[in-house]
Each structure stands twice: as C-alpha cells, then as structure tokens.
C-alpha cells in the first residue's frame, strides 16, 4: 500500500481544515498534546506563519490592495516557505507534522474568490497531499457567532469585503463563508477528507480525531 510505504520512509502529514471559527485550531492543539503524551515526535505548523513572509502579508492585508491573484500568491509564498523549510525537513526525519490549514484552505478560499480550481491546484502542486485531512463542517452563522465572542469585528478579507458582497460586514461574512463552505464540501468529497460535525461537543470531536489518527498510525507501523 502506497501510504504504508511512504509512512515508513517519513512522518505522517495530518491537516485540519474548516471555516474560521470552526474550532479546528483547538482540536489540533488537543491532538498535538495527545500524540506528544504518547512519546511521538510531532510538530505543528500554522497557516500564514512563515517568519519571512507573514509580516509582509499582514502589511498587505492592512493596505487592502490585494487582488484575488495577489492574495492567493502571497499565501502560497508563506506556505511554500513553511513547506520547504519547516514541514518537509521534519517529515523526512520521521517527525509527524500537524498542519492547521493546508492546501484545502487555498482551494476553498481562492476558489471562493473566483480563481480557477485547476490553477490553484497547480500553484500548490509542489506539496505532497496530506495523509489525513479533517474538515470541520460548521454553518457560517455559527462560525460568525464564535468569532464575535472572541473579538469585536471580522477582518476585511475573512468577511470577503474585497468582493463587494454587501456593505454590512456580517452579511458579507456569511455570504463569503457560505461560498468557502461550498468549495470545502466539494473538495472534502473529492479528496476524501474526514468530515467532522463541528457543532458536536468538543470531546466527541476529539475522540473521532484520535480514533482516525490512531488507525493511521497503526497502518503506518503495520
């Protein structure tokens, strides 16, 4: 089995995907600690966190000048930097890498901004597919309520305010994130993501994650 062969040669690549406010970051944090407690070498890499590229993205986002292509390309640059200098070296050494957002985020978000899926897939064609991806499915209205419990307002791009979907940030957020969710649903089906109902209690979601990861670890060592 291809996956088993690859797993013996390298660490496992596990990703979580979903809308902002879907709870995926909390879940991957819990999974990380669970795997570390088992004595496994595990590393977490967060979307949009390259020390070289992230400060530039923050500045560009604040300027609100990015075109959809520009937005896609600067995020791909951040990903490429992390993939080649943070993720891949660890996988090659047998470290398991947990990614808080992976290529599915680009396919869903940039697709929702109207860019062709084939082009986005080619843009990220240098990256190996994750061994296991969880998609945390949540209605955009629930995601919005969770975000607004933690901070006073949506960010410009998260609400899709660059796309003229409505002047009211809440309305724009729900419209844009509904588009993102529709893209996610199609990608999840096409790529075999494990879909998690992100409205379930946190503990139930974590149980599902651990079971799926344990199965994958078993296959990898078997």
């Amino acid at each position: 089995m291809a996956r088993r062969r690859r797993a013996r040669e390298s660490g496992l690549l596990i990703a979580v995907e979903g809308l902002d406010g879907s709870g995926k970051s909390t879940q991957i944090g819990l999974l990380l600690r669970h795997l570390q407690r088992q004595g496994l070498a595990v590393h977490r890499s967060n979307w949009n966190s390259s020390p070289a590229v992230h400060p530039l993205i923050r500045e560009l986002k604040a300027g609100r000048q990015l075109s959809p292509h520009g937005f896609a390309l600067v995020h791909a640059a951040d990903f490429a930097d992390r993939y080649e200098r943070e993720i891949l070296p660890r996988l090659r050494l047998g470290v398991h890498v947990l990614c808080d957002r992976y290529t599915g985020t680009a396919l869903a978000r940039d697709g929702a901004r109207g860019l062709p899926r084939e082009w986005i897939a080619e843009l990220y064609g240098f990256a190996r597919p994750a061994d296991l991806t969880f998609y945390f499915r949540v209605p955009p209205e629930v995601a919005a309520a969770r975000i607004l419990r933690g901070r006073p307002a949506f960010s410009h791009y998260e609400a899709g305010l660059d796309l003229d979907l409505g002047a009211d940030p809440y309305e724009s957020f729900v419209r844009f994130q509904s588009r993102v969710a529709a893209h996610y649903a199609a990608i999840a089906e096409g790529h075999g993501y494990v879909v998690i109902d992100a409205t379930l209690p946190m503990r139930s979601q974590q149980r599902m994650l651990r079971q799926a990861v344990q199965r994958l670890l078993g296959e990898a060592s078997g």
Partner: protein
Amino acid sequence: MSGTGRLIVVEGADGVGRTSVVHRLRTALAQDGHPVSSVRLRGSRGMRVPLRDLQRRADISERALFLLYAADLADIWHQEIAPSLASGGVVLCDRYTLTPVVRAEARGIDATWAAGVLAFLPPPDLTLVLEADARLRLLRMLERRRFLTPRESGLGATFRRDPQAMLIRYQHQLDALFHRRVDGQAIKALDASADRDRVAAAALALVRQALQGIGGGEGS
C-alpha cells in the same frame, strides 16, 4: 494582447541596460504620439520595499520568493497594466514573466510549474530580450555600485569563496535560459553590448515595427 493597447516587455539579465532602454523607448514613443507608460517588476505599491529586503535574506525559500514576485506582478497587472491597456495605451514593462521563470529555473525550481503559476498574466505583444556578455554586464553593475550582491552571484555558500567567478557562472546560466526562449517573432533578442543610444535606437525600431497599425505618429 489585452484591451486595445499594447504590452511591450524588455527583459534580460542583470546589468544589461533594460531600464535605460525602457526610459528611452518611453520618451521616443511619447514623441511619436503614443499614450505610453512604464512599469517595472518589483514595482507594485505594497511589495517594492519588502521584496527588496526579502531578496537580501537567506532564510526564505526560493519558491516563496518566486511566488512573492508573482504576487507583485499580479498587483502591477491589476493596478497599472490592465487599466492602461484598456484605455488604449502602450505599456512598457521592465521585466515581466520571463525573469521570475528564468530565475526560478536557475535556482532549481521546475520552470513548467513556474510558467503555469504565471499563466494568468496575458502574453505581451512583444518581448525584447537584451543580451550582453556577463563580463560587460558585471562591469556596468560595478560602475553603479561598490559591492557585488550575493543574489546576482547565485547566492549560496560558495559566494564568499569567489564571488566574481560565481557571478559570471550564474549570469552565463541566466543568459542561456533567456536565449532559449527567444523565437524571433514575439520574443526577439537584441544585442545590448553597444552603447546605450544605439541599443535604444535598435529597440525603438523593433517596437515601432510592433506598433504598426495602431495610433501614434511616426510609429504608425
């Protein structure tokens, strides 16, 4: 081509004299009566300074740097080139898609992938690839500044051992990669070894040829 205008690109390796050619073309085409503007790679509002700084850092992957140049081009396209072309102008571009693709290939990135990433940008009406021997280009670079920079030498540990040899070797490689793309039709080579006035005059003749049939005086 996009809209009713024309996109003319001047390409070529470091120190070949692109900027000077673009400047002279702009002046001459304006005198011909063309509505002309010029843009340059690493010229978008948000990216110019950060890209210059990132290029000097060693702790960024080559692929990430390529993608940032692609983002810069995307924004130059949306903010400047597309609107000018749509209003019927001639846009002179100091480097466009060839430079990032050639640089990426020279640094070990798959050129087909790189070209695919930039495929959303429309092809120019004419691309002039300026060519001159790497030693002459090095001499020109050193007339303008005091020190060699690591990127132009191909970066890497060997730079410190013999930067000059590294630079010549890397620039030869860039020359070959540029030249391979010249087709004599939409992408033409231009010997840039002569003095600037002569190179600009030869460039102008080729551009006027490409602009035949659209507005302007002498060039039409």
